[in-house]
């Protein structure tokens, strides 16, 4: 598997395993490029608490990960 593919797979694994969290931590763990990509594809859904931006993994992402892993 190519390096970029491996990075993508690891990023997918992170969001599927972690399930939800704060956006700041997400960007630290998978990088801004993958974070933006997953948001634009509907793999990651953005939310809010009063204090911070949040994220959660979508069913589409879980299904996608099960296919590619």
């Amino acid at each position, binding site marked *: 598997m190519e390096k970029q593919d491996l990075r993508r797979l690891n990023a997918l694994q992170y969001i599927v395993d972690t399930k939800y969290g704060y956006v700041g931590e997400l960007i630290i763990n998978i990088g801004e490029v993958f974070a933006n990509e997953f948001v*634009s594809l509907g793999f990651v859904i953005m939310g*809010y608490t*009063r204090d911070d931006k949040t994220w959660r993994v979508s069913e589409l992402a879980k299904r996608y990960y099960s296919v590619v892993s």
Partner: protein
Amino acid sequence: MKCHVVLWIPTLVYTGFDEPLITQVERNISDIPEKEFFVKLELVNGKDFCISIRNDDGNYITFVELERVSVSWNGLIQYTYKSTSAKEKGFRFTTTEFPTAIYHLIKSFYHVHDFHDADADSTFRPYLSDGKVDIKAENNGAILHYLRMYSEFMSNSVRNLQFAIRSVRENKKLIQPDTRSFIQKLCLFAKGYEVYMGVLYRSKYNTICKTSSSVRDWRHIACNIENGMNYVRTIEQEYGEYNQQTFVEDVEQEALSSLKSARWSIGLGWGSVVLGVASIVSAILSINLANKVSQRSSLELQQVAGSLKQNIGTIPSEISIINTKLDSLSRKSIQSSEIMNEIVKRQWTIIHRLDGKGEE
């Protein structure tokens, strides 16, 4: 401070957004289970929005009001609002921040998700501006912003489709029906966006984002959009044919292996029949042999029985001979013992006589 936001609502037919699907929605928009954050959106005067947040005491307080400024037939709605912020990092409406969760909720007032689950909706960043935007002007900032978002979405879709197909081929998962259907679902997801984004892309207000544009950056963006969609359609077609071919090959393979198994089974069956017949023949032969042996044995037994009978017949006469001899023996034994007694008597007599002479 007054801010402006232009939201793109996927539409096919110009409606003016005068007939919303719902008039109110209440939702927890936090993804952290232990930190719920409820917001309520209410349609005011049929076009404006009042956005409230729920406090710890359970009551809703108005947080921000969106006032509709203008709409265009290609799906753009412009709102204005006053900059409002609960906390520095969190939920806020400013010139640089408009919560995408609220954008998604506003969309639900006017749009039904046809080609995907509501949960799997792609999130475009809202277009924000310091001042009012003329959304009916040629190549206005809002329409170009969303076309750029569309191009990013197409590039990301292509990248992830390619990755998915590579992974599936490596892992040999193509033969599984649910994998096939999921790849097709990804293609449908992208094609669904083409249906709605095509309205913006072909809008008369878009003259710069074309594959023939003289502006290089916009020419590239337009190429990304069109090439991306061509790729998705080709993958869907090829994958459909590949799947059909693979499916047919799979069926043929299964049929062949079933035929092989059937042949083996038939062979084994015939083998069993032959073995069965051989067993029967062997049993018959064994029975015949056993019969012959038993006949011979019976003959021999009869002979033995006959000689035994003869022998048994002679036994009484021999017993009487033995008895006679025993009688004679016992008579002789008595005679012997009488003789012995006489001898002993005569010896004592001699001994007594000798003792008498000695005393004299």
